[in-house]
Every structure is written in C-alpha cells, then in structure tokens.
C-alpha cells in the first residue's frame, strides 16, 4: 500500500484519492477543516495554500486547501454556503497570511482568530472585496462605488 493509499483510512474516509489537474483530490465527507489540519500535521505534510473561488449566483464559496506530502500535491475542497469557516491558524502557522488575504479579498470570516490588515490598506476596514458587486457585508456595491 502506498502512502497515498493509506491516507483515506487515517482520515476515516472510505473514498480514494483521484488525480485531476495535477492534484490528488480526496472527498472528505463530514470531516471539517480543523480535523483535516490535525490529520495533515500527523502525516507531517507541508501546508501550501488555500485557493478561494467565489461561486456564481450567490451560491457561496469553494475553498481548496493544499498540502504537499513527499512531493505529491494533495487537495481538499470545502464548499461554503455562507461566508464563514473555522480558522486553522492555531494548528497550522503557515496558513496565517493566506487566511488574512482571503479574508480581505473575499469577505470570508475564518472564525477563532484575529486579523491584522495584510495586503489592503484602507484604515481599519478589513473584508474589502476586490470584485464588483460584493462587499464585506455582502451588500451589492462595487469597490468603485465604495470609493
């Protein structure tokens, strides 16, 4: 059994990894992101990043978490109906800046942590979304209108 084949069992999943677009994806079922982060720490995987996607028609967001395990790129996706997800910063220090960046760009709240401004400098205002039509509060206003 390869290392990759042994991971689903360690995560309590009956699924297997599927390679797609250069990433080994594993559906996680009911597992939440903090349980995943703990499991990845247990495997000594290296956290790489989180990629945020805004879904069309106000369907929410898709967050893709990536870890490296011996050169293999692992991917785990979480679809959010709202705009909150638990932070993994206390479990995975490497996630600090990317959580702050996504918070600023997509108005997502990573719960259980505090933020300081990272990329954007508009006073104390965080959660400034760069895409037209979306603001920190979710109201329909463009970034241009805000100015």
């Amino acid at each position, binding site marked *: 059994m390869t290392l990759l084949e042994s991971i689903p069992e360690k995560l309590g999943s009956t699924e297997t990894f599927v390679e797609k*677009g*250069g990433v080994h994806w594993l559906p996680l079922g009911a597992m939440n992101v903090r349980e995943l982060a703990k499991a990845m720490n247990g495997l000594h995987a290296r956290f790489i990043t989180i990629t945020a996607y805004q879904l069309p028609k106000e369907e929410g967001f898709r967050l*893709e978490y990536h870890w490296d395990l011996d050169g*293999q790129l692992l991917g785990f996706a979480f679809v959010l109906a709202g705009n909150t997800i638990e932070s993994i910063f206390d479990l995975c220090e490497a996630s600090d*800046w990317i959580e702050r960046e996504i918070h600023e760009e997509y108005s997502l709240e990573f719960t259980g942590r505090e933020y300081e401004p*990272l990329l*954007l400098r508009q006073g104390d205002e965080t959660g400034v979304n760069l895409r037209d039509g979306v603001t920190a509060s979710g109201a329909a206003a463009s970034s241009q209108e805000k100015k």
Partner: protein
Amino acid sequence: MSYKIPMGPYHPALEEPYKLDMICEGETVVDANLNIGFNFRGIEHLAETRNHIQVIALMERVCGICSNIHTLTLCNAMEKLTNLTPPPRAQYIRVIMAELERLHSHVLWAGIAAKLMGFKTMFMTCFEIREKVMDVLQAISGNRVNYSMNRIGGVNRDITDPDSILKMVEKLEAEMLSTVIPIFTTSRTATSRCAGVGVLTTEKAIALGVVGPVARASGVPQDLRKAAPYAAYAEMEFDVPVQPAGDVRARLLVRALEIMESCKILRQALSKLPPGEIHTEGEKFAFITGTATARVEAPRGEVMYSVSWKEGSRNPARVHVRTPTFVVMPAIRWMVQGARLADTPLIQASIDPCYSCTDR
C-alpha cells in the same frame, strides 16, 4: 525600556517597499511586525480579464527577476487544461531558461548580500557576472528581463547554437568558481557577518512551511525539481544542497552551492538538447472546464499556480498564485528576534525577498 523602530516602507537594503516595525530593547530586537501590500496590483483579478495569450504576458510581470518561472508555471497549468504536451526540445529549453534565471537571481542576491556585509568590491564582481548571465539570456530570448519564452504547448524561441551558449556558461562557471564561490564559502568577512545571525530553526521552518533556499538552509531538504520533476528535470543529474545551521551564512552557502548545481544542469541540458519541434505546431486546442494546478521550483522556492477555466470562455475564471516569498517572509519575524538592530537589513535580505511577487 522597549521602543519601536519602523524600518521601511522605503527599505535600506532592497529597493522595494515593505515595512518592518521592530520592538527593541537597547540594540536587541525582541519582536517585529511585518506590513506588506505596498506593491499590491490586483494581478490575480486582472488575469480574469485576459485571454490565454494576454494572461501569459500579464503573469510574466508578477516578478521582474523570476518572470520566466511565472509563465512556465502558468503554461504548465494551462497545458493540463488543454491536454497539450510540449515536445522534448521545448522541455529542455524550459530547463535551460529556468536555470539561467536561477543563476541570474542568485548572483544578483549575492551582490546585494555582499553590499550589506560591507563588501562592496564583491557587489561589483557579482553584478558584473550577473550582466554576463543576462547576456546569455538575451542571446537566447532577445530580452534581458521579461523573456517571453513560454507559450502553451512549448516555447517561442529555439536555441539554434547550443555550443556557443555552452561556451558562455562554462566561462561564467569558471569566473564564479574563482571569485564568488570561494569568497562566500571561505572568506572571514562573510563568515563573521553571517554566522549565527538570523537563525531559523528546522522546527520553525517546518511549522511556517518555508520553501526554497531558506528551507534548505534550515535543514529541510525539499526541492520540487527532485520531489516532483517537471519539464526535463527527471533527466538531469544534480544535488540539492542542504545546510543545517539555519543562519544567514547557511543561506549564503546554499545559494553559492546552487549556483554550481545550476551550471551542472545547464551543461547537461545544453549538451543533450534533443532535436525536433519547440512547440506543438498547428495543433488546435481548446480549454476544458476545470481547475489545474502546477508547481515549479523558482530561485526563491516553490511557486504554485491554480488556474480555473470554463469551456468556451476566452478568459480564465480564476488564477491563483502562491509565490515563495509569501510563505518565507513571515519567517523574518522569528529570524530577527534576539538579533542586533544593525544585522536586521542583512537578515531581511537573506531570504532574498521579492515584494512584487508577495503582493501581486
């Protein structure tokens, strides 16, 4: 009594803006807070308004020093979405360009590090060598900074006379072997300014997920060219230099040794350059719906691109770039803790930061 010293956003070491607020007790730094974002250009969002040709030119401008690496990673991702495989000759040319860029980047950094050590003649020597590396890049691509070499399915320009390029590389290697390498590995000035300064322990390097030469200088032996080979790296023989000390000197040694490894790879790639096409000529392609991810070992470490496309769309739906400095820069806070204030410019420069990459 502690007091705060703001350094930047106009930086004494590197001509790019970022700010480090240092809390000092006497001459000793006890903590620091980093502020970035001064170069934020919204490139990821701009990419969503560009077609598959324009987006390559745009992403080449994420970084001035490792511009080739950005287009290489982007093209690798887009090739997964178009099912195009570059021909072997193109894969070799991609390796040659990537290693020349690594040489250019490391020698540039060595010059800046020398200047910060107070070793200005070494700065001049490094920049003279860097000019020669840029001459080689210009001989291949016609450009000195943004090379426009990568395209979906291959490269734009061939290396028509690899022997002449090989001679230029061998001359460069000899010059570096007689100047940069011995000075950085054995000189007392370099050792006294760098040994034991700005230490990042192996444990902290792993916890922060740092990459590239900074990780390897903290005893973490990771390099995507070995762990997850792309282009023609699987066919190259080279070593990955690792140093356990985690200080500025270890970062200096790793980069000096990597210069020699890059020369080794260049010699192999140029002498074994396979014949054939340099891109998938005339082959029609279309993007499939989905997301593709590619990773490449840039001079500063792992670059990752996630590209999302919808079939029939002219533009990508999303381009996410994770640059190496974005994960390495937070480590500065830990490197400067306990350091002397006078050493902090050198410590900050020792990660070879790229603020343009970080902010995007």
